[in-house]
């Protein structure tokens, strides 16, 4: 008996008892639907968080200056003045096998004015590598050049929030705005990036060459920066890169072996790890709940298959009489159980996607139905059918045809 025939016979046997088949499959339907829905919601949430994290930059490591220690008075993290733009250049140069791009960051702030509009915002002094490091493109205009950086030109690029507030309904490119009464030419506008994972608006910013910010706005002779932002080629390199960066900076800062670092490195893996462990916990919980519901569903299938074998004793006898081998009967009943559970699985997948979408729409929550979760759910439901269908099928295949034919 070929497989297609077996499948057809199984399908017919199932469709003969529609209500019973549906009720039997219900356990599987509910189990699979729950898994699909929760996975879709969970993965949607995870993807949203990861997108927010990635919006900060590609595989980012941040280096902050360490605490300042002057005569026993210790400042907080970042109070030190020993991290320089040259440190950043050295990292980019010496670790170029790991590092894609480096930018120093000098923070400043102030009131920006254009004609009758004014807006208080933060000013970030960065290098030309900034768009690459932050993975941030221009919406219009161009970024400043290496020449601008060398010369400390009074040029800037503005975020969308600043553009909206200073230049409502106008193209800012080429216009001149004033920061603390000093004119800056606007070279372009960055694309909208939205809020970061901490909820602050990343578009509310003005970006200028760090040389300019230092000279014009900070008016300082010190060479220090607030932060180095380092972008790596690969997320996997983060531990190695952190090590190498520490080594290089210790060397440059001439720290002896028994001195603590005078800088701090922070990377995204710490945040991603937290998200990862939450996801893992969710997955374990989910798998447990799903396993229990699918186990119950599977037992339901086994139960109804045993009933079916008893009910169809004479049919089994007849099939054996006309030439069905024990393995034909075994295969037929396993196929029946598998078809039952697989159809249940398919309905469950459809219901799960529908449920997740509904929840997503009502709660305005992102939904992500991955192909792999659908495929796994489908295969798993088929496996349940085979597993729980095996025992009833074995019983059927071991029946004696003579007894079966006489069975009333």
């Amino acid at each position, binding site marked *: 008996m070929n497989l297609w*025939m077996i499948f057809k016979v199984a399908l017919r046997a199932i469709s*003969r008892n529609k209500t019973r088949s549906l009720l039997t499959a219900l356990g599987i339907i509910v189990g699979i639907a729950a898994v699909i829905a929760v996975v879709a919601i969970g993965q949607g949430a995870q993807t949203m968080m990861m997108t927010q994290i990635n919006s900060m930059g590609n595989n980012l490591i941040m280096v902050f200056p360490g605490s300042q220690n002057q005569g026993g008075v210790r400042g907080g993290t970042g109070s030190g003045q020993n991290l320089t733009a040259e440190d950043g250049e050295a990292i980019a140069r010496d670790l170029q096998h790991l590092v894609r791009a480096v930018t120093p960051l000098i923070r400043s702030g102030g009131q920006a004015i254009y004609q009758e509009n004014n807006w208080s915002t933060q000013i970030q002094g960065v290098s030309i590598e900034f768009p690459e490091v932050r993975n941030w493109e221009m919406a219009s205009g161009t970024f400043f050049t290496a020449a601008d950086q060398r010369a400390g030109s009074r040029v800037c690029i503005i975020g969308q929030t600043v553009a909206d507030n200073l230049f409502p309904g106008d193209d800012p490119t080429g216009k001149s705005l004033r920061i603390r009464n000093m004119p800056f030419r606007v070279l372009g506008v960055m694309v909208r990036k939205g809020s970061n994972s901490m909820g602050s608006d990343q578009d509310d910013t003005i970006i200028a060459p760090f040389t300019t910010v230092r000279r014009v706005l900070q008016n300082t002779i010190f060479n220090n920066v607030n932060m180095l932002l380092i972008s790596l080629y690969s997320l996997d390199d983060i531990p190695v890169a952190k090590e190498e960066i520490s080594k290089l900076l210790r060397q440059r800062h001439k720290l002896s072996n028994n001195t603590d670092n005078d800088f701090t490195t922070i990377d995204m893996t710490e945040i991603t790890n937290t998200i990862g462990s939450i996801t893992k916990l969710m997955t374990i919980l989910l798998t447990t709940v799903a396993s229990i519901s699918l186990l119950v569903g599977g037992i339901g299938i086994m139960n109804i298959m045993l009933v079916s074998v008893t009910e169809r004793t*004479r049919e089994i006898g*007849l*099939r054996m*009489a*006309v*030439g069905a*081998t024990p393995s034909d009967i075994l295969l037929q009943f396993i196929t029946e159980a598998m078809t039952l559970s697989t159809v249940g699985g398919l309905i469950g997948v459809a219901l799960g996607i529908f449920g997740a979408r509904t929840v997503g729409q009502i709660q305005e929550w992102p939904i992500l139905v991955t192909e792999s979760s659908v495929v796994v759910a489908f295969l798993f439901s088929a496996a349940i059918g085979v597993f729980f269908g095996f025992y009833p099928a074995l019983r059927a295949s071991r029946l004696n045809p*003579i007894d079966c034919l006489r069975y009333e």
Partner: protein
Amino acid sequence: MLIDIRNMFKIYRMGDTSVNALDGVSLTIAAGEFVAIMGASGSGKSTMLNILGCLDTPTTGSYLLDGIEVSGMSRAQRARIRNQKLGFVFQNFNLLSRTNALENVELPTYYDGKISGRNRKKRAADLLERVGLGSRLDHTPAQLSGGQQQRVAIARALMNNPPVILADEPTGNLDSHSSTEIMALFTQLNRDGITIVMVTHEEDIAAFAKRRIVMRDGLIVTAHEAIKEDTAR
């Protein structure tokens, strides 16, 4: 010989006692015969039919069916033999309910990969035509009379073109009119060259057979000249 049974025993043991359902039976049936096996209940005729039908195996003894020794075969091997060499007709028809006549007749070919879908349908339809049900291909058993159901069962028995048809009380559940029709059909099939072995306890049904075998206590009492003896009694 199509069927050649030699010195066959079937012994059932129940605790200390043992019952010889078949007690050293030998029997040969040639191709083209129409044999009726008779006997009281407990005479061993059902056991005989089960063994003839390869549904059961003898305790000892040899059984050559169409030249093949089947007495020592496994369940799967016997299933193949039943599929290829034997057609069954039962007292209670044993049709699949809620399945139309055509598909009931097709059933034996499901377990025989040789015939394709189109040919299968064609052959099943031809056989139903042959048993006089050409206009009822898509009727389910519930929509057919007892006699018609038994005709479907006979068409099914013929589906794989076996050399032997085994019938177990084929008219037991039928009224006399239908019984006569079914026996006429058997007679016609036998005339067409099909060997038929039938178990019955009804004299008038056995009268359709060309040869009678009467069994008692696991032995064949009269294998030949059976008609004369029965007439005398």
